[in-house]
């Protein structure tokens, strides 16, 4: 009962805090919304692009061209030998007959029927883990070249190096933007709490006088922080939805020119509900800590 009563008091006092400076509260909500919109739009794009990205071969591929004298048994032995190698995630054997058929289909069979023998080699396509470093790929290529029945080995290490650098830059940018967003949110809530605390100095004094402890006093400020970020997240959801709706036709059209299907969708509503709840919890925690810090010298 007491727990309910103190929470109810906290909510009523939060209402007073907001009514005292509604403009400042609204500004804090809008700042939080702006900060949340960036990761929400990015997450929506990333989630929509995930099916496409999964189809891309992100792991480096090494083509192992085998000698014409290699028998099927020898090729299978080599295949199992390579499968056991660390870092290898997949091996596909393209037999010389399959390769010739594919070539015939692609070229419209022009002149291939005249051939007396199939000139194409058997090929093993070795796919390494996407985490493999360029040096590991080069080392694997060198090792494969020394193997028996291997005629030649080809791998686009340069492309892999570029892809890794691109992903690494994207991760660093993501971390930087995430850090900036987090810092902006923390500062927004703390500044809002500090302003409310300054405006409530007499309230704090009276509450200490009548025996309220810091936790009791901090509650309305914590609720205000929770509401700021929860509303910020809700507004950000709306902004994200509007942004995606505006961008979707152009993005879909762009994907179509590359022969891909791209369905730009906002995040599912359950996710958004969880994000609003999470934002409220984080806002409450930041505001509570900020208030207690502000009250630390009030005896």
């Amino acid at each position: 009962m007491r727990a309910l009563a103190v929470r109810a008091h906290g909510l009523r006092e939060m209402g007073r805090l907001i009514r005292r400076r509604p403009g400042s509260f609204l500004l804090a909500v809008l700042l939080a919304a702006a900060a949340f919109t960036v990761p929400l739009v990015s997450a929506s794009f990333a989630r929509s692009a995930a099916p496409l990205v999964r189809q891309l071969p992100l792991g480096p591929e090494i083509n192992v061209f085998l000698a014409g004298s290699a028998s099927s048994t020898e090729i299978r032995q080599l295949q199992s030998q390579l499968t056991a190698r660390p870092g290898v995630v997949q091996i596909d054997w393209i037999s010389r007959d399959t390769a010739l058929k594919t070539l015939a289909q692609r070229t419209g069979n022009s002149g291939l029927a005249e051939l007396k023998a199939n000139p194409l080699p058997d090929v093993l396509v070795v796919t390494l883990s996407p985490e493999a470093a360029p040096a590991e790929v080069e080392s694997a290529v060198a090792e494969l070249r020394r193997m028996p029945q291997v005629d030649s080995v080809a791998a686009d290490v340069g492309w892999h190096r570029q892809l890794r650098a691109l992903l690494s830059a994207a991760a660093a940018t993501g971390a930087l933007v995430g850090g900036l967003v987090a810092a902006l949110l923390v500062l927004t809530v703390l500044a809002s709490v500090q302003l409310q605390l300054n405006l409530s100095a007499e309230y704090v004094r009276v509450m200490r006088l009548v025996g309220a402890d810091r936790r009791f006093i901090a509650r309305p400020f914590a609720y205000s922080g929770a509401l700021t970020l929860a509303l910020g997240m809700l507004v950000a959801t709306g902004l994200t939805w509007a942004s995606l709706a505006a961008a979707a036709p152009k993005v879909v059209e762009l994907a179509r020119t590359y022969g891909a299907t791209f369905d730009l969708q906002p995040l599912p509503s359950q996710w958004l509900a969880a994000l609003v709840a999470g934002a409220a919890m984080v806002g409450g925690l930041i505001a509570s800590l900020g208030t207690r810090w502000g009250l630390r010298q009030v005896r």
Partner: protein
Amino acid sequence: MTDKHAAAATLIEFDRVRKAFGAAPPVLDGASFKVERGQLAVLTGANGAGKTTVLRMITGWIAPDDGRVAVAGEEPARLSDAALGALRRAIGIVPQDLHLLADRCVLENVMLAALADGLSLRAAAERARLALQRVGLADWTQMPADLAAGTQQRAAIARAIVNRPALLLVDEPTAYLDAPAAGDLLRLLEEFSRAGMAVLMASHGEPAPLPSSARRLRLAEGRVTE
């Protein structure tokens, strides 16, 4: 008010208390006195003698440099934040400048103390109305700024007694009151002490007419004499 605070016979105990601020001579220098349940004690002293310091030590706002200050057996300066809050809720405090919040009516001001004690809105309002009736205030909906000084004083006293404290501290209660209003207030404080509450009143001079039952404590040169 907790059972522990309610059961204590000696509500205030100063034992050879010393307190100095900076390099100035000590405000309190070996001050000792006690206030028991049901007593109305008046602490008089010149400006700067240390009367407010005594009250602030009782409420835990400041700590003694030396000696012991105990309230219902507890030393306020050594209490945790939560325990200090509980102790303050067992003490009614009426500061000299009253500290009534300007953004809420008298009833809501009085309710704050009950709400800090964990009461629901309805229970706090009920208790606040009783406290206001006890101090003779009928109009609860007015804002503090609209009240006369004596009425503001009564509102602050109602806030101080809303949690039925064992001890009431009042700082310069008659400073801004005319003689009839001061007389009414002193009679009210005497009623509280007769009902079992210990009342410690700090005053620049001896307020008149002081009830005959009142103990007279004089603070001068850092010591308390009777």
